[in-house]
């Protein structure tokens, strides 16, 4: 048998699956994004123009940017802080398990839980939401956590995401932190570094590649963020995000063209981070 061709035989099943379920849908989505709502009229870049200019989409872009910055900063930052601080705590595993627990909950369930926490009743009625109950007990006025735009409600949604994902960042970073030779930290202390300088000059550089992987993973997630917003506000009061926009265009307004265009935009935005992530991961594996 011709050995030059035989490898195609082995690759064929995998390529077939990839082509059928990955490449074809992607190509088809790109094609649809140049057609009208019912995929029958070619409209050129009109869907893209609308995606980048319509008011709801601009709000969604703004919110995604907010998610990108705040969510990533807090999940990675708090994950790192917890990883380093908990390393010195006696009941480390117990506390880490508790912080990691939300990862085991589906976003829909997390959304439902937090809707209860954020529930708002007018000042005259008894507050059944945990947060407002606390606010009122402390003598404040109840706050419409999911209503007050644009900062309170968006940040309240982001907080749910942070609650879910901080544990993940913490666990990955904690594993990397434990890989730091203790003598290296001690050497730095003897060299004259205080705890902050040890952290800045020794710990952070050592964790650099892990931090990069965790950060890009968070960014990829946050660009696609959907479930939390869909369950809790469905984009009301200016809390919409790109992925939720896409879902609504598709399944409420049956605008296949615009939904496809949004999907393509989202896809293109994520690619660079995916590439960074895969490269970093490969580099890390190569070191091992």
């Amino acid at each position: 048998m011709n050995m030059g061709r035989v490898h195609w035989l082995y690759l064929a099943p995998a390529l077939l699956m990839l082509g059928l379920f990955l490449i074809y849908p992607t190509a088809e989505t790109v094609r649809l994004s140049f057609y009208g709502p019912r995929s029958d009229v070619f409209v050129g870049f009109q869907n893209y123009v609308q995606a980048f200019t319509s008011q709801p989409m601009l709000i969604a872009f703004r919110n995604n940017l907010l998610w990108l910055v705040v969510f990533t900063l807090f999940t990675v930052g708090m994950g790192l802080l917890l990883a380093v601080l908990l390393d010195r705590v006696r009941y480390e595993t117990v506390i880490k398990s508790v912080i990691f627990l939300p990862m085991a909950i589906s976003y829909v369930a997390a959304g439902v839980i937090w809707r209860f926490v954020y529930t708002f009743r007018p000042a005259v009625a008894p507050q059944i939401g945990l947060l407002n109950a606390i606010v009122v007990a402390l003598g404040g006025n109840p706050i419409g956590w999911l209503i007050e735009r644009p900062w309170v409600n968006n940040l309240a949604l982001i907080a749910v995401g942070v609650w879910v994902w901080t544990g993940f960042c913490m666990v990955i970073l904690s594993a990397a932190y434990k890989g730091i030779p203790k003598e290296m930290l001690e050497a730095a202390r003897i060299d004259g570094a205080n705890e902050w300088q040890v952290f800045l000059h020794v710990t952070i550089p050592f964790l650099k590649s892990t931090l990069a992987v965790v950060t890009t993973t968070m960014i990829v997630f946050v660009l696609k963020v959907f479930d939390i917003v869909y369950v809790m506000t469905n984009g009301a009061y200016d809390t919409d995000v790109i992925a939720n926009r896409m879902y609504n265009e598709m399944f409420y307004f049956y605008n296949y063209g615009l939904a496809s265009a949004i999907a393509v935009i989202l896809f293109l935005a994520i690619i660079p981070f995916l590439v960074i992530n895969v490269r970093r991961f490969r580099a890390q594996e190569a070191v091992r």
Partner: protein
Amino acid sequence: MAEVRLNEVTKKFGGFTAVDRVTLEAQDAEFVVLVGPSGCGKTTTLRMVAGLEEVTAGDIFIGDRRVNDVPPKDRDIAMVFQNYALYPHMDVYNNMAFGLKLRKFPKREIDRRVREAAELLGITDKLKAKPRELSGGQRQRVALGRAIVRNPKVFLFDEPLSNLDAKLRVRMRAELQELHQRLKTTTVYVTHDQVEAMTLGQRVAVMKDGLVLQYDDPQTIYDHPANMFVAGFIGSPPMNFLEARLMEENGRLYVQGKGFKLLVPEERATDAVRGYVGKDVVFGLRPEDIRTPEMVREQQPGRAFVGKVRVREPLGDELIVYADCAGNEVVAKLDPHLAIQPGQDVTFLAAMERMHLFDKETEQAIR
């Protein structure tokens, strides 16, 4: 430059006493070695001097200053670790410069010191390299360089040579000695290797179970070990220990055991030794203090015993012989040119003026 003093220093981890009332002092410019088997508390002692472990009780002084509550960075010490603990993301230059930068030395001064140290250690061409590009010996030199550039009051070494291969270890040992002669910095050096302890230490503290069993210059420790542990730990092959009884016949003392009866020389029959007449003791004899008749010019009475050779190990410069003497195993270090074969009965002569006697109960030397 400073002296280091430990006064009744104790370290407990929970209920476990790792270091038990250790009192030691290293004089200014002295090279002191802590040696002992693993778990004897030597590293913990060193880490307390460094400030990496808190002291449970007792005082540590560096110079005139009590440093118990002084953080490591303010103790003016430098430490070299077993695994070097270099910063992997910094090149050699910055590894050495890190401590100086933190102390806000001027750039030119840092540069001068780093280059000087690199010159001294022969790593000038490696200044731009990352630690992972270096061999074990080079990494060790960088770790040394990092300690040297700071010009600290005290060097602390924690088994710095044990990750190197045997040949390199011997060379680095000599280099360390040379370095100390040049810099004259007070040094505390921890090792489990008795050869390192003997060759490097101006004074050696032998530790076991958190206690300092003996603190003396190497030759004194070798010639006059304070107890059976020190006697057995220092020296290779280790000292022979034989169960024996001290007897007196016609005013002369004899050590008698299974298969031997040896005369105690007059000068060794001290009052302390005489006090053990009629009692069981442990008789110690170093392998090199056992000879054969061919090796001595004039034979003295009361020194001979017979053994059947079991194994011979010719090392070129010497011949190690394991013999069976009425059930006791005896190791002797002999002239390599002797025609001794396994299975042969050989007459051995004990250099009794160099014998050791130990109390059977307390294992302390009887002198």
